[in-house]
């Protein structure tokens, strides 16, 4: 979800991890007889999105605690889910998004957190401490958040974009025919079209979804491609001039090209939160708590935010960040737009409505 690299870079550490976790199981098994939890072996298996951590984070953690982190990467929530669906293969910390936390909770895939071991959650902004998908943060601690919006090339677009109409309304999109890319993500694209039509992003009303589908089918001739998480590259290389993308991805290319900018359309969009969680059956829960606490240490967190350029829920860290981060529209969407935004929720068995609409759009 976060970057193109996220999806396609070979996962170099996979084999090393398998060996590591096999050894880990053996050692912790042998060690558990005499020692207590706190004497957990100095290992931690983290499973995170690619390009989603600071450059020095893991090294600093190792230097402070002596814990060796085995760091694995995934590209989207579904990959994470598929990996853990039939049982935890040995991960201690995972970073699912909001709706995925909800699904994982329904399937008992997450361990309750002991807040006394994560004192740094006091740094969190109050707006994030009681999320709808996990009331009271009992199983999850917000890590980073962001939005879906439009990244575009200012010099190639008539005036600043403010509405989804420019990419969803056939008559308006015609002006940019062949220069627009959508995300290749069914819930994201249909969800934004639903927002544009004034419906909820998580609707299970078949006729509303059908209207969004028909709108997208009508606009499709003007769309160049459904970007496989590489919309920011298409924008940067001049392949398209407008792309629907995740906020932080556009923030990254804005660093490289001043002509690019990002907007969350006024009708509202998706606001998502990724969360640090401990999956059921984690071999090192103690170290995992330690790591989650470490990530929200103000200095550590600032370094992460400064590297990945997603919005932080850590208020104390944000307050100390430079204006180019805190005032960046591609990192923090303006409040008046944000209030129209919605989190994606799990739609359970209604997923099929979205799936079929998406197939119809792509096959038309």
């Amino acid at each position, binding site marked *: 979800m976060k970057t193109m690299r996220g999806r396609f870079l*070979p996962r170099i550490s996979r084999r090393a991890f398998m060996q590591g976790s096999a050894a880990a199981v053996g050692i912790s098994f042998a060690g558990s007889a005499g020692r207590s939890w706190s004497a957990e072996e100095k290992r931690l298996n983290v499973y995170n999105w690619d390009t989603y951590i600071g450059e020095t984070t893991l090294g600093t953690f190792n230097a402070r605690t002596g814990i060796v982190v085995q760091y694995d990467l995934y590209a*989207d929530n*579904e990959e994470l889910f598929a990996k853990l669906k039939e049982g935890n293969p040995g991960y201690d910390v995972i970073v699912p998004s909001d709706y995925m936390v909800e699904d994982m909770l329904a399937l008992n895939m997450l361990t309750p957190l002991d807040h006394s071991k994560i004192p740094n959650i006091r740094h969190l902004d109050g707006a994030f401490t009681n999320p709808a998908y996990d009331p009271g943060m009992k199983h999850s601690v917000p890590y980073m958040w962001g939005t879906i919006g439009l990244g575009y090339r200012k010099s190639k677009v008539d005036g600043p974009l403010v509405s989804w109409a420019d990419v969803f309304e056939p008559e308006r999109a015609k002006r940019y025919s*062949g220069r627009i890319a959508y995300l290749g993500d069914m819930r994201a694209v249909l969800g934004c079209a639903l927002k544009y039509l004034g419906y909820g992003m998580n609707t299970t009303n078949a006729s509303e979804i059908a209207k969004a589908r028909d709108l997208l089918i009508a606009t*499709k001739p003007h769309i160049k*491609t459904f970007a496989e998480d590489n919309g920011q590259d298409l924008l940067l290389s001049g392949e398209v001039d407008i792309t629907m993308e995740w906020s932080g991805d556009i923030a990254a290319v804005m660093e490289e090209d001043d002509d690019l900018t990002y907007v969350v359309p006024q009708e509202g969009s998706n606001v998502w939160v990724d969360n640090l969680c401990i999956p059921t059956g984690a071999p090192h829960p103690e170290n995992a708590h330690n790591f989650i606490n470490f990530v929200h240490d103000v200095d550590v967190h600032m370094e992460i935010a400064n590297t990945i350029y997603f919005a932080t829920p850590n208020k104390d860290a944000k307050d100390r960040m430079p204006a180019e981060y805190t005032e960046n529209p591609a990192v923090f969407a303006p409040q008046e737009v944000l209030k129209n935004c919605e989190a994606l929720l799990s739609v359970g068995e209604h997923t099929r409505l979205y*799936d079929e609409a998406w*197939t119809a759009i792509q096959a038309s």
Partner: protein
Amino acid sequence: MEDWRKNKGAFAIFLGPASFWLLLFFVIPLILVWVYSFGERGPQGQTYLALSFENYLRAIEPIHLGIMLKSIWIGAISTAVCLVVGFPVAMGIAFAPSRWKNPLLLIVVLPFFTNLLIRTYAWIAVLRTRGFLNFGLEWVHEKANWLFALAGFPAALGEFVPLELLYNQYAVVIGLVYVHLPFLILPLYATLEKLDRSYLEASLDLGAGQWRTFFSVLVPLVMPGIVSGALLVFILSMGNFLVPDLLGGTDSLMIGNLIAREYGAARDWPFGSALSFMIMYPVFIFFVINAMVARYRTRRRAEV
């Protein structure tokens, strides 16, 4: 040489590991997927085992059949292009002086040493609006314009308009042909290599022209190689989802993409399994008919 039928022990020793491998990693997973295809999707995307034909009913809805037909069509076009491009290459290698054969074969196989993803991404860099191909064309255009200007016709060709080469079905076919070409060249080369050249000489000696010899003698003789190569390319192209994902436009959805989505974002493994088996049933039926025809033929031959 002793017939293997007479030495069953040794035969079993050699066949054992391979059969075990096939059973463990091919037959059992396949049966599992088949069982899934009658299952049901739970609200969180769990796979519940059941005996429901719902997934198959969904799979034969017009929209899904349409996607399958389109995949077959794209697969067929890619196979045809592969044949046209690959046949001369295979012939060239087979008829080349023997010291050239190995280096030439190496060139054909060489791309396999690079990851498929990297190679597909490379095509993006070649085909995109500001890609290498368009840069090349622009250069030619510029020089031509300069020549026209020298001849007294300034700006005769006008502004260069880059070609839209990426994100359409052509790009998908180009990608599929590129990826699968070696799968056609290699079996075809193997057949051509074994071919008895005297047939061709006889044909030419007896007055048939080059074309006549090619189509009436060579092609029928290497038909087994053509069929196996084409079948490989067709099956691999039809089921590919990476190439349409990366090079395709908004209408490049193929059956492989749909199955990948059902196993991924839609979390509907039962439906994904049913879709997979919708492709496999015709193949099974084909093999059964093939076996029956073969048996019928041998019986008839025995009777004669």
